[in-house]
């Protein structure tokens, strides 16, 4: 990516909204899907494969006039544990924090168990996060554990 575009992205600061920075490069579009950004009608800037001093390559999202509940934004921690959330009001950063893996996950993840009822009827999946470090999700229905390597998103 050329320097000019990075600059442009940096300068296109938003007046009000949310910036999600330090997204692992390969996860940007997954984050877009998890947050259902396709349905947004406000301005969205998506930066992918940008150079990052810390991570090599990174992604960034700038979402004008969008603010998220903690539970909603924390869902992205499953694919982007390094992401930083920056909340902006009147061009000022009013909050900056790391996303956290939530205690419960619903809707966005499929159960790994092919014989789980959630894979056979229209049921919203629900998991309890039983291990945040290794990322282990226990299905509320079949009680089987889905681990990081086998997570697939709805």
């Amino acid at each position, binding site marked *: 990516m050329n320097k000019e575009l990075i600059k442009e992205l940096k300068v296109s600061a938003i007046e009000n909204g949310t910036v999600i920075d330090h997204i692992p490069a390969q996860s940007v579009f997954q984050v877009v899907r998890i947050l259902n950004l396709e349905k947004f009608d406000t301005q969205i800037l998506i930066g992918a494969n940008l150079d990052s001093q810390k991570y090599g390559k990174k992604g960034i999202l700038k979402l004008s006039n969008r603010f998220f509940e903690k539970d909603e934004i924390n869902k992205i921690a499953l694919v982007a544990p390094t992401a930083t959330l920056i909340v902006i009001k009147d061009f000022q950063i009013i909050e900056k924090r790391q996303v956290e893996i939530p205690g419960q996950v619903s809707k966005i993840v499929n159960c790994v168990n092919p014989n789980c*009822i959630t894979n056979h009827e*229209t049921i919203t999946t629900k998991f309890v996060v039983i291990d945040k470090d290794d990322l282990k999700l226990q299905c*509320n*229905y*079949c*009680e*089987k*554990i889905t681990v990081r390597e086998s997570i697939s998103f709805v």
Partner: protein
Amino acid sequence: MKNRSLISISDFTREESLRILDLAEEFEKQPTQNILDGFVIATLFFEPSTRTRLSFESAVNRLGGKVIGFSDASSSSVQKGESLHDTIKTVSNYCDLIVMRHPREGSARYASQVASVPIINAGDGANQHPTQCLLDMYSIRKTQGRLDNLHIAFVGDLKYGRTVHSLVIAMSLHNTTFHLVSPAELKLPSSVKMHIKNKNLQYRQYTDLNEVIPLADIIYMTRIQKERFSDPIEYERVKNAYILNNTMLCKAKPGMKVLHPLPRVNEISTDVDDSSSAYYFQQALNGVYVRQALVATILGVK
């Protein structure tokens, strides 16, 4: 506990399970009582299990309740493609309690969220079978005089055996020492082992059945099914390694009892049946009392 569903044995606290066992003792003394007069219980068996279904129906009938339902999915609207959601919604209108068996894991939990009446899980795929668990606990307490501080050996298919999963979880509340005997392919899943570890209890895994016989107060046998193996050669190799016969029992503790959720195929030789260690047929009878206690408690008549 009135109006509560029983899906997984961990839905009950230690005290709640004990309360059911105590009540089951009362029903053992007096199994015929007219306390469910006017109640309708549905038994929905989306996969057949004659033994479990008859045990529930016997329990309800002896208490004067009425039973409706079906004994396998082919004779019901499920055959016509009706969803579990719709079947449960509909049947909820016709009864006070639903007992269900279903081939998919998680089906009973889902049903309990959809139904307007309580659900008793009579087996959901390879996941849970809590009423079998309660009758196993009842049998253990009856034969050993206590539930606490026992050495229990689980033998056979520990991976898919749902009766094993439920009983391990339940017994982890009773300071049990676990001896887990299985082929490498069929070890206890980590989601179940977690309950043992959380309580810091002793457990050991074995591949040789002979090693645990002198250690155990209870030997809980299960069937190893061919279809559970990805490699048929592996099945042929292990299929005879987990068969208990009378000669092997000479090293057992005097009060040791052999349990089995039944039906057995060949994993317990028939020469064990007449030994003082055999308890699996009495174990099945205990199921009626435990199910009477459970149904009466959930319907609020006891």
